[in-house]
């Protein structure tokens, strides 16, 4: 590249550098701090580790052992898994049936109902808590896993159904014609042909929904606060911030525990994740 072009491009590179720095420094600070000794964290900034980065003795796993054992975050981590995996599986399953129904079956009111679904995608969940809570306590679902599975499934259904529908509606019609000539029932067509074709779309919806539920705070606060021993990570960490707000060794390690799984999912399945986002928005 010739020097003139390089100089012309310098502002561009600098701007991008500033953006990248603002986006990575906060997370970097959190990560470094989570491995430092509590006394050091309170006494000096995390950036002071750099001059003697390789001299050793600055970092340890103590804080992680502290939050996972002492603060009971192991339990919360398992709770988070036990909330998000079944809830995601149930909602993807139900949504794929509904998406097929809306895309390829004919029945009265199909269009109206689907428009209702599109409208409900953005409804504030705040509208739903007050009437459901009394029913939940009567049915003894408050503070239970099945209770929150059902709630998350229902709340996720409009968007997941819409996303899967967009994909299924794009399947060529010929495929269904030949299947029905071969005498396949709608259910067989759905189960044997449509589902296998839709695996990539289902995967991105699954990842999307999984991260949404894993990261959710509000729904868990509302439906699980009756019993602290079922609290997911987000709720436990919010409590830690309230009760131990200055204990940064605990907060940083705890926050990173909650971020670890989403980051792994993000980096290993980035392709599906991005595809899910694009399916939801660009098509509009």
């Amino acid at each position, binding site marked *: 590249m010739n020097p003139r072009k390089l100089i012309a491009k310098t502002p561009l590179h600098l701007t991008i550098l500033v953006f990248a720095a603002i986006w990575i420094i906060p997370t970097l600070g959190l990560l470094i701090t989570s491995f430092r000794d509590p006394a050091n964290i309170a006494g000096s900034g995390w950036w002071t580790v750099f001059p003697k980065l390789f001299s050793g003795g600055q970092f340890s796993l103590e804080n992680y052992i502290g939050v996972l054992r002492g603060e009971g975050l192991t339990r919360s981590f398992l709770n988070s898994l036990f909330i998000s995996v079944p809830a995601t599986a149930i909602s993807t399953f139900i949504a794929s049936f509904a998406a097929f129904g809306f895309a390829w079956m004919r029945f009265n009111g199909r269009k109206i109902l689907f428009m209702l679904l599109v409208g409900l995608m953005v409804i504030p969940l705040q509208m739903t808590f007050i*009437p459901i809570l009394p029913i939940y306590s009567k049915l003894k679902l408050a503070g239970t896993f099945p209770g929150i599975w059902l709630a998350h499934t229902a709340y996720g259904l409009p968007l997941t159904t819409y996303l899967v529908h967009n994909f299924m509606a794009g399947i060529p019609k010929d495929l269904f014609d030949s299947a029905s000539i071969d005498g396949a029932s709608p259910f067989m067509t759905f189960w044997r042909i449509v589902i296998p074709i839709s695996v990539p779309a289902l995967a991105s919806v699954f990842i999307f929904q999984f991260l949404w539920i894993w990261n959710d*705070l509000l729904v868990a606060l509302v439906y699980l606060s009756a019993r602290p021993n079922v609290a997911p990570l*987000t709720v436990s960490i919010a409590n830690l911030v309230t009760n131990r707000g200055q204990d940064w060794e605990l907060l940083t390690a705890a926050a990173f525990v*909650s971020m670890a799984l989403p980051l792994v999912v993000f980096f290993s399945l980035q392709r599906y994740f991005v595809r899910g986002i694009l399916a939801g928005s660009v098509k509009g």
Partner: protein
Amino acid sequence: MGVRTKGWRSPRRITLFLGRLFLQGCRAVWRWLRSIRWRSWGFVAPALTLIAFFLVYPTVMTVARSFFGRGTTLFGPTVEFVGLRNWTYVFTNPVMLTALRNNALWAVLFTACTVGFGLVLAVMLDRVRYERLVKSIIFIPAAISMVGASVVWKFVYAYKPADLNQIGVLNAIVVAFGGEPVGWLIQRPWINNLCLIVVGIWMWTGFCMVILSAAYKNIPKPLLEAARIDGATEWRVFRNIILPLLAPTAAVVATTMVVQVLKIFDIIFVMTNGNYSTEVIANRMYKEMFNFFNYGRASALAVVLLILIVPFMILNIRRFAAQEGGR
């Protein structure tokens, strides 16, 4: 000796008539049942049942509940009708007005910055070789929880008195340039609200960037080249070609952002819990429900959110209908 009625009023006739009517009715119901496409409904029934119970029914009841008083039951003998009292409270109480003001501030700044930065990044990153790396960096916050992000930024904003070493990045920079450390989350009303909005922008810019970048890459490059050859400056290419072509996508992204930001809750709940004039509608609604046990006011607040979001709901439906029509 019983009276025998003759003619059409005889019991036998009536029995026959009713019997026939019953049979006709059965047949009609049977025909109607057969006309329903059970198999079609079977596919959508589970989803529709859940949606009806968890979304439609509660929406109706919450609207109704907003005209009733305090208490933690939906309706019942202890819940009294209060007419518009919750509503006048929402639009006159100072804390509520602060919450409404903050939601407006969030809606404007958050949406402008996320979409604006997303657009700028999408166009700029297309011109450098390390596009993928920077995109990943900007996008990472979208994958983590708002609770996690709140802890990350609470640490950035950490405050220590001037005679101690600063442990928060932002105050360390301020002190390094000779300033006094600032209580970022306490300085009301603008600094702390801006600091909270920054957290939101940090989380959602990546989302906007990914979508706008995909749209940008769909623009035929010869179009831009032709303009450049004709002597258009980079700014004019951006202003007169790129921007109009990206406008529809940017509008979609902006509506998504507004809908997200109106419901903003987690960041406020974790970082300030609405203290120091940082209250927002959703956080206030949570407090009314679980701290003050006033389902009436909480319902009214939820309905405020709904009313603010309804225009976007209609927009989504109309956009969808137009798209279906074009298919």
